């Protein structure tokens, strides 16, 4: 466990702010890709760090702090999703031809721009599994645990996501 984490656990907000600076980009990227909505990603990033502060005492150093934080972030996103189904109305649907042109998220210039947009345009379930599996490196068993879906569903959503993405990128 790092000194910063230890100090933050003792209530040192300056130390926690340093942890925030170190990890906010990764947390925000995760929230942004899972939600495909920049404003929502900001809210969830805030929620994730607030939750991390509230649960900091439960971090025992058995894994890297970053792993703990990113897993917690995924939990925050999915808990928010379950609590507010309305979010589904805000994400882009692949079937919507205008989806790729719509504002609502920050584009990431440079490498991967098209892929980022294409990921954002995936149906929610497929996008989440793709982001967690192919971008973040979680295993299907972990995704199933985090999202509450079956392992088989996770595999099927990944297959679907990849096929849709490939089709979008080639079109």
């Amino acid at each position: 466990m790092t000194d910063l984490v230890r100090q933050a656990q003792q209530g040192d907000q300056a130390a926690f702010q340093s942890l925030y600076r170190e990890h906010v980009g990764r947390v925000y990227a995760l929230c942004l890709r899972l939600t495909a909505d920049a404003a929502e990603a900001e809210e969830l990033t805030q929620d994730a760090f607030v939750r991390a502060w509230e649960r900091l005492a439960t971090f025992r150093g058995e894994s890297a702090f970053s792993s703990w934080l990113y897993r917690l972030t995924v939990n925050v996103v999915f808990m928010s999703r379950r609590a507010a189904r309305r979010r589904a109305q805000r994400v882009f649907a692949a079937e919507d031809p205008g989806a790729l042109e719509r504002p609502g998220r920050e584009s990431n210039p440079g490498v991967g721009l098209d892929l980022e947009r294409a990921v954002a345009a995936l149906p929610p379930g497929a996008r989440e599994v793709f982001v967690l599996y192919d971008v973040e490196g979680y295993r299907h068993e972990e995704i199933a645990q985090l999202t509450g879906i079956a392992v088989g569903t996770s595999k099927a959503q990944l297959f679907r996501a990849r096929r849709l993405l490939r089709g979008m990128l080639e079109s």
Partner: protein
Amino acid sequence: MTEHENPPEFRELLDRAAQLPKSIAPPHDLWPAIEARIAGKRPGTGEGGSGWVPWLVIPLAAAAALAVLLLGRRGPPRPGEAWEVTRVAGVPLVGTTPLGATGALKVGDWLQTDDSSRAVILVGDIGHVEVKPGTRIRLVRAQRTDHRLALERGEIYATVDAPPRLFFVDTPAGTVVDLGCAYTLAVDSSGDGTIRVSAGYVEFDWSGRRSIVPLGFRAETRRGFGPGTPYAEDAPQALRRALAAFDFASGGAEAVRQALAAARPEDAVSLWHLLGRVDPALRAGVYDRLATLVPPPAGVTRPGALQLDRAPLETYWNTIRRIAWRRTILKGIRDIDPRTGMAR
């Protein structure tokens, strides 16, 4: 689907996915909003900083009395009771003794940090105080009903989770009274200072002069003058200058006029304080400007406010402080109308 089950047409896609940046900077800094939300909370407790309402005298008094009663069951404070102090960085001194990893701060002891040392004092079982570098602070009293430090110079960050009026910090410019809050208090070598509140409310008293500083506000303090008029962290410079002139430089009517001209609806907390501080001849002007910026709620009459009747002032204050609280706590999340406190 495992990696070796991937059809060939997915390989390029996977390579590109692996190249996506793991980190994306948010469009703006999210820390201020996060800081506001965690202020007053201890890690792992999930307990929020309480929004103590300074004018709800009866429930607060009842809560305080209950707390005193309950806490009193644990027995009277032991003579010479000490608070635990933990070294965070460098080598703080307790008296003249270097502090180890942890130590005890007894009543009468001074804790001193140099430019590179920091420490945390546990305030009995109700909170903690982070002692920043360059600070000299003394434990004055360690009683169940009176947890008291004296800050001679330097800076502290205090977080207290307890009924109001159990934790006090004496400074050369007056006494900080905890109303259930978190705050940063700085005092320079001349005894002047600043208090910034990051959760709940703080009362600052000196010789009958009182300022109530809510979340998101600050107040200057001056030796021999006490607390200045609180102002919002984002208050216009013109308002700050006018308040400083009024509070500490005998600015009089001209300073009040400038303050009123510079004030926005977000500055209602400042104008509310001015109501009770200005000469009676200037009070109507302050009230009228305040009423323009934040319409008074039902039950607040102009004559009552100008006579400084307690009930209408409390009612008005409750409206103003609720708006200020919502505006600060929802910063970056919702656009709050500073005249009404409602989301726009």
